[in-house]
């Protein structure tokens, strides 16, 4: 992936605005852009969602498949998260195997969903030690306008909450799949993620593309419904102070409360 080159002049004007508590697009420092979420957008996927934060747009599809559990967790289903920063989404995204940015997005999303205990993976066991449901969750990033993390977690959560698998029964040690009887996968928790950029020494929520390009550092924090923390990831080459980290946790707890209204009703 080729780095965007941001003229110094843009950096300065964005930074100076933020220092004054303002943003180029008129938002408050802790304000999200417009968010929209649709589920069930892909009929061929057993679960799906299209999420937009500002102009950032991600289509998520979840596809279950019967497979074998990992040897060390014989009674636990498998969740596999993949992301594609499509070359259509930005002029500097290139075709090819996922680069480090795409890998980071997939892994952070995966940890937030997994450690946030979204899916009750043990209930995805079909035959203990032998057959479990594997859920492949693919994120297709089609338009990139900053802050992929929050959109990714919201989209994956929504896709999983609407995912159904065929009911199964065991007859003579064989799995019988009933596609007529689709059942929702068991959902436990609903963690969400809030990303903040550090620009001009301030924390700004939901960085836009322009802000993303010039940010000094970034922190994404996953928060469960009860306010507890399930995931965290710093990015960028400028440090955070101890105080900034604690402040960021507080902001994330507040803002994910707001985000919760976009979660589809179970």
């Amino acid at each position, binding site marked *: 992936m*080729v780095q965007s080159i941001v003229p110094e002049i843009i950096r300065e004007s964005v930074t100076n605005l933020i220092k004054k508590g303002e943003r180029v697009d008129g938002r408050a420092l802790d304000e999200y852009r417009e968010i929209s979420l649709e589920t069930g957008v*892909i*009929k*061929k*996927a057993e679960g*799906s969602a299209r999420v937009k934060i500002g*102009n950032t*747009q991600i*289509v998520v*599809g*979840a*596809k279950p*498949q019967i497979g074998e559990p990992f040897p060390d967790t014989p009674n636990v289903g498998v969740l596999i998260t*993949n992301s*594609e920063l*499509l*070359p*259509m*989404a*930005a*002029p500097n995204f290139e*075709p090819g*195997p996922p680069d480090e940015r795409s890998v980071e997005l997939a892994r952070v999303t995966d940890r937030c969903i997994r450690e946030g205990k979204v899916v009750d993976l043990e209930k995805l066991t079909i035959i203990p030690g032998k057959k479990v449901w594997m859920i*492949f969750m*693919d994120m*297709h990033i*089609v*338009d*990139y*306008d900053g802050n992929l993390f929050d959109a990714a977690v919201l989209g994956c959560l929504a896709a999983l909450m609407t995912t159904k698998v065929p009911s199964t029964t065991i007859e003579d040690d064989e799995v019988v799949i009933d596609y007529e009887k689709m059942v929702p996968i068991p959902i436990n928790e609903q963690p969400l993620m809030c990303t903040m950029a550090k620009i001009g020494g301030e924390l700004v929520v939901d960085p836009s593309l322009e802000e993303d390009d010039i940010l000094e550092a970034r922190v994404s924090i996953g928060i469960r419904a009860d306010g507890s923390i399930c995931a965290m990831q710093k990015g960028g080459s400028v440090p955070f102070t101890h105080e900034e980290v604690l402040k960021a946790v507080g902001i994330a707890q507040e803002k994910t409360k707001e985000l919760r209204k976009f979660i589809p009703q179970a």
Partner: protein
Amino acid sequence: MIIILTSKSIGNNDKGTLTTSSTKKRRDGRDFDELRPLKIEAGVLERADGSAYLEIGDNKVLAAVYGPRELHVRRLLKPNMAILRCRYNMAPFSVEDRKRPGPDRRSVEISKLTAEALNPAVFLEKFPRSTIDVFIEVLQAEGGTRCAGITAASVALADAGIPMRDMVAACAAGKSDGQVIMDLSEWEDKEGEADLPIAMMPRTGDITLLQMDGHLTSDEFEQALDLAIKGCQIIGEEQKNAIKNRYGD
């Protein structure tokens, strides 16, 4: 900015002009010379220089265009014209059984043919030493995605303001259940006897994509070719409407 167009009626109205007559209804209720419901939107993405979203039947396809722009690998550039590159890609969740991400042999071939199908319509000579990149993402596949992709890409090129001789519209015809038909569905393609996808510049009738596999007599081939051309003409009108709806007349 969003346009929803159903071509069902259009297809039916024009039916009488074809010489072939057929009374058997198709599995999904369509006549032999009827397109699936079609919807095209231009300008659906923010970052791309041009973009389009297309639904035909249950196909859902996005196309985006970047360029004309410079290329790092100078060796590939041409001194007297732009090169048009295309990447056709299916989302892992677009098909019944999850598709592994990344190009396979099918998508490599379709990408090549799509570039060749769009090439004749673009004034490449206006942009020497540059590239025009076309990206097609199939979000949901239900038969005929290569044609859907070409059709959408053509609208995205126009949306990007790239000067074109004409739109390129694409449509398949084929034979299924013993009948020569327009715009095969996934089921008709899979169970059918032949598939003939073409792309065309509607104004001149020039054919820029031509593939066939299956089994057709010369007569059947001619019928199918006529149906596919007819389909391209209808689709070409919808492409123009999509652009008009975005930019006005």
